[in-house]
């Protein structure tokens, strides 16, 4: 059976070109970028080339890019190290639909004596700029609002958030792990001070990410040691990974209309199933590769595993899919009931997704939903 991968928000296939670009750095140009000899030189050059590429993508300067091990590390460093550099009794603003890498970090900081405000979102998953402006106070040091949400794909008004933060003299961090190279980002124009991104969401390898730190912003390392990355992140650089990250970036196209068209075809088709709806925003306020539905009467884990049996890889915000047995905090924050979140299905596309694949899932999904509804005590038929 052919497998159809529609879980690209979780992670993506490494592009073959990316693997090709990485290979020499495993077995051939394997030097440590800090070494003085040619092996080191090669590695260091590859790092700097990659740094340039990645800086270019968001209109940053190369020296503003800190390579990390992924989005979670970048989020942790951005938020914790800005916080610690200012000391406790300061105030941080975030939103209720952030990724756990941001939310759990903020919870940790609360325990350490920081005050945290979690902005609510409306039923599309957007924060209100008014709320934001009102929440900023003298003690506020940092606003961390994600660019686009990983579950529902809602895009926040980052440009306006940046403007407000700059006006109020507050630092602005955005988790751009999902939006990076899917929609345009310009850190200068958008007044972004810190930004997180992760390679494995855009057909690069896992275990590599970056933190953009605007020059002038003082931040400490999360990982101390040999002083790599201008002292901001120690540890022998993952050269192959970083080269792969950069190569992956060069393969991306914004906007990718093919993906968006397929996604729209998918949404249209799925919404023909009865008692089902789209979660999140429509149109330009949504990531072009994201679709997220709720199906009444059925549970998401069962849905995902039935789809898996039909060869389709998908994801859900169901309580049963988590270790905590709580349904998606994102869907709940948007006002969905427990049961509605329980029956959610996320389908996320990539540039490798084909029309045939979309048509296939549109063919199998109705039957799977019907089957599960048949065995559900909650009604349906």
């Amino acid at each position, binding site marked *: 059976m052919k497998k159809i991968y529609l879980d690209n928000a979780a992670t993506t296939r490494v592009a073959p070109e990316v693997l090709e670009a990485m290979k020499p750095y495993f077995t051939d140009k394997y030097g440590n970028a800090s070494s003085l000899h040619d092996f080191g030189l090669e590695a260091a050059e590859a790092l700097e080339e990659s740094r340039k590429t990645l800086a270019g993508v968001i209109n940053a300067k190369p020296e503003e890019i800190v390579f990390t091990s992924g989005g979670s590390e970048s989020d942790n460093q951005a938020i914790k190290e800005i916080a610690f550099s200012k000391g406790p009794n300061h105030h941080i603003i975030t939103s209720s639909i952030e990724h756990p890498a941001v939310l759990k970090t903020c919870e940790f900081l609360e325990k350490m004596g920081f005050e945290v405000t979690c902005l609510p979102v409306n039923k599309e998953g957007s924060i209100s700029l008014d709320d934001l402006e009102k929440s900023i106070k003298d003690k506020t040091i940092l606003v961390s609002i994600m660019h686009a949400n990983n579950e529902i794909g809602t895009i926040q008004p980052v440009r306006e958030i940046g403007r407000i933060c700059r006006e109020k003299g507050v630092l602005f961090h955005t988790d751009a792990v999902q939006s990076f190279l899917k929609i345009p980002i310009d850190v200068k124009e958008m007044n972004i001070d810190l930004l997180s991104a992760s390679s494995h969401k855009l057909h690069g390898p896992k275990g590599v990410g970056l933190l953009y730190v605007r020059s002038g912003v003082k931040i400490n390392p999360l990982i101390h040691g040999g002083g790599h990355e201008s002292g901001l992140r120690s540890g022998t650089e993952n050269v192959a990974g970083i080269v792969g990250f950069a190569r992956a970036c060069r393969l991306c196209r914004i906007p990718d209309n093919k993906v968006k068209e397929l996604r729209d075809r998918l949404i249209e088709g799925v919404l023909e199933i009865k008692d089902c709806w789209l979660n999140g925003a429509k149109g330009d306020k949504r990531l072009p590769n994201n679709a997220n539905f709720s199906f*009444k*009467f*059925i*549970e*998401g*884990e*069962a849905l995902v*595993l039935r789809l*898996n*049996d039909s060869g389709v890889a998908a994801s859900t915000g*169901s*309580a*049963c*899919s988590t*270790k905590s*047995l709580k*349904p998606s905090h994102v869907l709940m924050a948007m006002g969905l*009931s*427990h*049961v*509605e979140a*329980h029956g959610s299905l996320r389908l996320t596309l990539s540039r490798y997704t084909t029309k045939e694949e979309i048509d296939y899932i549109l063919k199998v999904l109705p039957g799977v939903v019907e089957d599960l509804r*048949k*065995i*559900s*005590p*909650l*009604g349906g038929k």
Partner: protein
Amino acid sequence: MAYMYSKRVMELFRHPKGCRKMENPDAVGEAGSFLCGDIMKVYLKIGKKKDGLFIKDISFQSFGCVANISSSSQTVELAKGKTLDEAIKIKNMDIVRKLGSLPSVKIHCSVLAVDALREAIYNYLKGKKLPIPKEVLESHKRVQKELKEVEHMREKVLK
């Protein structure tokens, strides 16, 4: 987390036994988990043998995950043909053992399945004005409390 499911769990999930709504059951039992929001119904048809009342037919419906569906299915399989006295003695760990294993966060699904079965028995005995064993009374109390907590979820989706 899928790798945490045993072969048997996945098999029952794929081909659940007795997974249907029953027409004209003699009794229905329902249980819900306020932990994860899962809900389950058990349907019974009761017959009479010389050693007493027994489960002639049994089926279930599940609004729940893989573990939920498999636990229900396993419970149905285990209870079918048993006398009510025997059926009451089925423990959730019997289900887990039959399933090979369940991830620890999913053990409550097996509790739910056994609870729903007992609820059906409770309802049957109560309807017939028969004496209700202590363990059934006890689980009944617990189940009703939990159901109240999931009630508002149900209402929302059933409206």
